[in-house]
């Protein structure tokens, strides 16, 4: 039975849409909490997760009124650095990671005109090194995550021409492992989160031929554990966030039917805080915006009827946002 039909069964827990939207709204207000202070360095990613979660639930305008939306956008504006990069929060150094988050937030709110495209493109292209890899900032840390962030942001801005895409993809290929997965650098162990970024980057770069779909698809399918959830590496505990990292990769490969989607959906729904909203990593843990978004995004890929805006597995943005931007949607096989 397909997961979409399973969602109608009485045994399937309900997705608490109202509660999750309230949870995201509260998270965006609670500036005086300790959690808020400790996560200030990745505030832009937090905003992207929250905004994208309510968008996919079809509640963007109801959750954020005009004033709140402007407050969020001004905050993003103020995270911009002179070199065109964005920091994770105000006063933080710019980084490729948060530059993508900023572009994603502007895209979600249809406010791309607030971006100084040339400056962002200039920063991102200056991060590419001669072997095709990307550093996260000028201090030189290299990671395939940064390749994805740069290529995704550049594609969203229509400026992939500013970097050497072939070299970027060849570098990712050099990070491929014996199990078909990818690591952060050549020789780095496969990790489902890293697989998402590498498969996504290769999809954007038009080089999915570098992927051994049967081998990697199988490794990804083996991430599902008995309780239905997915882990990120062999012999590890399941975590809701891998619902996204694994399932999106399988989706790009056209192989989401290689796992038990209904069991995964049940696992995600069991991680909900049904009273106060939010989704946690595992049942009965403390929810946060990160797991809330990736849980909902995973359900979106499985066609949950309450997630009204289908999400694109490569860009991690609603398909309607990409369509609005005139971006061709990723071909996702039968999965």
């Amino acid at each position: 039975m397909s997961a979409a039909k399973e969602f109608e069964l009485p045994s399937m827990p309900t997705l608490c849409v109202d509660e999750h939207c309230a949870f995201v709204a509260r998270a965006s207000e609670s500036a005086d909490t300790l959690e808020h202070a400790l996560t200030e360095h990745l505030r832009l990613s937090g905003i992207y997760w929250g905004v994208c979660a309510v968008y996919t639930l079809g509640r963007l305008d109801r959750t954020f009124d005009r004033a709140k939306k402007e407050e969020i956008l001004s905050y993003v504006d103020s995270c911009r650095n002179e070199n065109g990069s964005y920091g994770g929060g105000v006063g933080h150094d710019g980084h490729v990671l948060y530059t993508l988050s900023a572009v994603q937030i502007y895209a979600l709110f249809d406010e791309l005109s607030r971006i100084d495209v040339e400056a962002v493109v200039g920063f991102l292209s200056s991060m590419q090194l001669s072997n095709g890899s990307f550093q996260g900032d000028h201090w030189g840390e290299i990671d395939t995550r940064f390749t994805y962030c740069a290529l995704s942001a550049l594609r969203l801005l229509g400026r992939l021409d500013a970097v050497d895409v072939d070299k970027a993809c060849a570098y990712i290929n050099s990070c491929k492992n014996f199990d078909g997965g990818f690591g952060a650098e050549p020789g780095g162990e496969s990790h489902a989160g890293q697989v998402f970024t590498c498969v996504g980057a290769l999809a954007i770069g038009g080089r999915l031929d570098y992927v051994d779909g049967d081998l990697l698809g199988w490794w990804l399918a083996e991430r599902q554990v008995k309780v239905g959830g997915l882990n990120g590496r062999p012999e590890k505990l399941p975590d809701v966030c891998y619902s996204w990292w694994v399932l999106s990769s399988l989706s790009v490969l056209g192989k989401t039917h290689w796992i038990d989607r209904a069991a995964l959906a049940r696992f995600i729904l069991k991680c909900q805080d049904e009273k106060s909203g939010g989704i946690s990593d595992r049942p009965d843990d403390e929810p946060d915006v990160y797991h809330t978004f990736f849980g909902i995004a995973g359900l979106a890929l499985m066609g949950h009827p309450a997630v009204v805006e289908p999400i694109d597995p490569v860009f991690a943005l609603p398909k309607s946002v990409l369509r609005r931007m005139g971006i061709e949607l990723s071909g996702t096989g039968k999965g």
Partner: protein
Amino acid sequence: MAMTEKLVTTCPEVTTGWNRRKEAVELGAETAEAARDWWSEELRVSEIALRNAPKSYPSWYHRKWTVSRMIRTMGRESETVRMTLERERALCSRLLDADDRNFHCWAYRRFIVQSLGVTTEEELEYTLKKIEDNFSNYSAWHQRSAILDARGDVDSATLKGEFELASNAFYTEPEDQSAWMYHRWLIARARALKIPDERDAAIASALEICREVAELEPGCKWPLLARASLEDEKSRRDVLDRLSSIDPARVGYYRDVA
């Protein structure tokens, strides 16, 4: 520096704090007094951060940046650099004894042993020790495959030893997927052997062992999965049918590869 130390040891994920330290190091390097022994402080502070948060990307990177800068400014042959690299290798061993799956530490260790010029044989020996300590150590199996792959074609004598190592693991822990995943890679390497007799012998011997494990562990999916890639067409279908019934979550996969 005291302020950033407090920041990065309490909240090691704040990259900006580490960046201020890097800037200070670079500025300080201009005066001879401050330049003396600048690295000890960076290694000390990042070690505190890593003790509290062993999976913190910025803390690991700060350490790598520090050691890279030492190598760049003092040269690989400098006594201080060599001593530091050896100390770092020992630190990695300690941390991997505490958590043998910490991929940050494995990555950092690769950088250290590469800088030290450690031989492939010595590194293979280390992965063997880690695997024998714990057959579930997928990180060590991975590292072993990466070393063998980097060394070039895996020859039939090497393969024979590796098949034995994997078999030892799944005779002991048949349900542990680490050795089985390594085994799948070995089968692919065996198929790539250039001499047909060697290739056929390697495949036949792998099949024999998988049949034996499957008989000993009738409820275990892993030997069946390996057999599915080794058996002839007819037996293969039977094996895939059995897999579909004992591992229904992945029935879509078994159908597609049938």
